[in-house]
């Protein structure tokens, strides 16, 4: 069987949910779990259709379904059967800790491998390969993360066995179909402290998801991707050429015993927790900087001597793309901020501090404007912390919007950026 199978699906409309599903399939995900709830039901719903649990209902699942059948793609989907988000996360946790196969190192050096895997049962592996198993995706709406918090927090304690677990959260910051307008970036970033990204476009989400699996599986840590209500449902026309990673999908199954990691009792988790916060998060930051563009981020300099930096995340980033296409908007940007460095970033946590320091030392930057959606202000607070700790002579200014405007109240985010 071919390791990579490529299929041109022809022009179709893809929603954010379907784009994430596409990314997961391209990453070779074998087990998917979730609990339905707007706005993200459709993500696991797509997997349920593709796994044959319910009839295929839309062009995406019909065409991708044919493709999966042709390639012998293995896919297990557990949706409402998992009865709540905590069970969905626990099932995902159980599926991801089974490491029955190995892959070659792609991102880690030997020393870094020792740091991540040096105290596991795989420590004696001469080739310092990465222990891998099924890639797993777990999805639920924003409130689901409250229910699943127990299992998600424990996933940090069993690092690096949770590498290969992707969590997709659909945030209803509009309060359209939820009792709260919760900003889950706070939970995933500040509480669970796992790499967290906010996606911004159905046309690029799949690449980010796929590359997150590649990078964070090797780092042995779960990651979270967050979509807002608008992105989850918004459809765009794309010409998807889907490339399935069959080698990943057909990895050897097997559970390797390592009770010192997988039995989460005090004496076991205390050193891991210490290591996670004091060493691993720094490693994640370093790897994120090294693979900044791989994760769908971009640094653009407008002008030779930028005195300001703009960080655009999530929906702001989506609207900011207009600047590239419209010279009038570009002029307005330069009029407003003069020369400026723009960081178009999916990253919410951890923020790559060294990258900011580097940019601040290179350019005479005086102000950093942070544009993010949600009351959590996760990026702003991290940058504020960085500036204070490092004693950088830069002002960090919060330009976030604490909620997502409803569809008929939606104002242009590019105007928000350009009008300040």
């Amino acid at each position, binding site marked *: 069987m071919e390791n990579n199978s490529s299929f041109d699906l022809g022009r179709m409309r893809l929603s954010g949910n379907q784009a994430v599903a596409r990314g997961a399939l391209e990453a070779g995900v074998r087990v998917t779990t979730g609990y339905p709830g707007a706005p993200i039901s459709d993500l696991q719903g797509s997997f349920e259709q593709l796994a044959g649990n319910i009839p295929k209902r839309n062009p995406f699942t019909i065409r991708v379904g044919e493709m999966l059948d042709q390639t012998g793609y293995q896919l297990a989907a557990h949706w409402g*059967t998992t009865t709540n988000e*905590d069970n969905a996360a626990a099932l995902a946790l159980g599926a991801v800790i089974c490491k*029955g196969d190995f892959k070659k190192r792609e991102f880690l050096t030997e020393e870094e491998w020792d740091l991540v895997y040096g105290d596991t049962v795989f420590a004696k592996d001469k080739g310092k390969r990465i222990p891998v198993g*099924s890639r797993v995706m777990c999805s639920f709406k924003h409130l689901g993360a409250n229910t699943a918090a*127990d299992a998600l927090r424990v996933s940090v304690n069993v690092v690096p066995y949770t590498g290969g677990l992707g969590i997709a959260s659909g945030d209803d910051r509009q309060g359209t179909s939820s009792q709260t307008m919760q900003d889950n970036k706070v939970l995933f970033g500040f509480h669970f402290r796992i790499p967290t990204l906010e996606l911004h476009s159905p046309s690029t989400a799949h690449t980010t998801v796929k590359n997150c699996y590649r990078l964070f599986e090797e780092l042995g840590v779960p990651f979270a991707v967050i979509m807002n209500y608008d992105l989850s449902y918004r459809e765009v026309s794309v010409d998807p050429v889907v490339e399935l990673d069959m080698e990943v999908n057909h990895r050897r199954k097997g559970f390797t015993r390592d009770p010192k990691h*997988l*039995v989460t009792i005090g004496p076991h988790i205390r050193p891991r927790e210490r290591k996670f916060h004091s060493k691993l998060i720094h490693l994640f930051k370093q790897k994120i900087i090294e693979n900044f563009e791989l994760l769908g981020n971009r640094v653009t300099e407008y002008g030779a001597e930028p005195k300001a930096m703009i960080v655009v995340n999530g929906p702001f980033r989506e609207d900011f793309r207009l600047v590239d296409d419209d010279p009038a908007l570009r002029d307005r940007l330069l009029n407003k901020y003069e020369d400026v460095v723009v960081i178009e970033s999916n990253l919410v946590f951890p923020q790559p501090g060294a990258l900011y320091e580097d940019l601040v030392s290179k350019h005479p930057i005086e102000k950093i404007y942070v544009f993010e959606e949600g009351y959590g202000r996760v990026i702003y607070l991290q940058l504020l912390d960085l500036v204070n700790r490092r004693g950088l002579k830069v002002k960090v200014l919060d330009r976030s919007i604490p909620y997502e405007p409803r569809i008929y109240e939606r104002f242009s985010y590019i105007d928000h950026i350009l009008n300040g």
Partner: protein
Amino acid sequence: MASKQNPAPKDKAADEITYLRPVSNCSGCGDTKVSWSVREGMRRFNRQLKLKGKDRYELIYAADRGCGNLQGYHAYGIVDAIFCMGTGAIVGDGIKESCSDKQIVLTASGDGAYNFNISGIKFAAKNKKFGAINVIYNNYNIRMTGGQIPLEVDFDKEGPALGFEVIHINPYRVDDNAELFKELYRRYLNKEKIMVVADGVCVLDMGKNAKNSGIRMGHFIRSDECLDLKFAKERARVAREEPEKLKGMPKFKCRLCGIGLRCHALLDNDPGKCFGCGACIQFPCPVGALSFDGPSFSTSTSINELKKT
């Protein structure tokens, strides 16, 4: 008392010091006896199928939080995963998705964890892809912090309602239970759903109740055939007559029963520490030196039943 690893902080009173010691269950603890049967059952299952080396089936034990499962990790080393309260059964189902065909997943919960996440156990019952063996350590109470009013569970009604066949076991009938687990592993491979309820596993409670009911529990007896007793006599003779040879001698000869059942009474050969559980009655002593005198919980874990006998 402070130790080298845990020196007494100077500004703390002596009674504030936390002791460093391994988890150790009571000598008559039913949890440990179930763990022995689970492990022994897998050994017999492989032996029955004449499987050796890499061909053997392997047990994966996904547990819940609680003393019932901590002993499995500390005393027997059979526990592979403990995560959150109540998620043992569903984590087990996740493992089934990604483990090999030669690995049999057994999940175990205390009755506290059962109440905590009954929906996870329900999922295990409804998942048609795999079999399920779910062990419930039923001590009729939620004990971790102690003293709560018990939430009674009728497993005979709830188990079938969830989709399980319920089998009650007396944890102290270790040999019968090992045979049962051997059979259950076969049924697991046939995708059957079985809930094993180990009744009355808190021997402290049972001992107290028996005492209050006027039942004097029995204790184990070792005959002269016991390899350890014989060896102890030999050691005593060597110590007396040729003390220079004593250093080179092992400290014990067999100890299969004490180590196997994790029983302090048997290890110390001290009937005073015996709770009267009677697990040793069924323990396969290589020379048949173990017997029991008086009533034991291996007859029944119910005090009313014991009274009748």
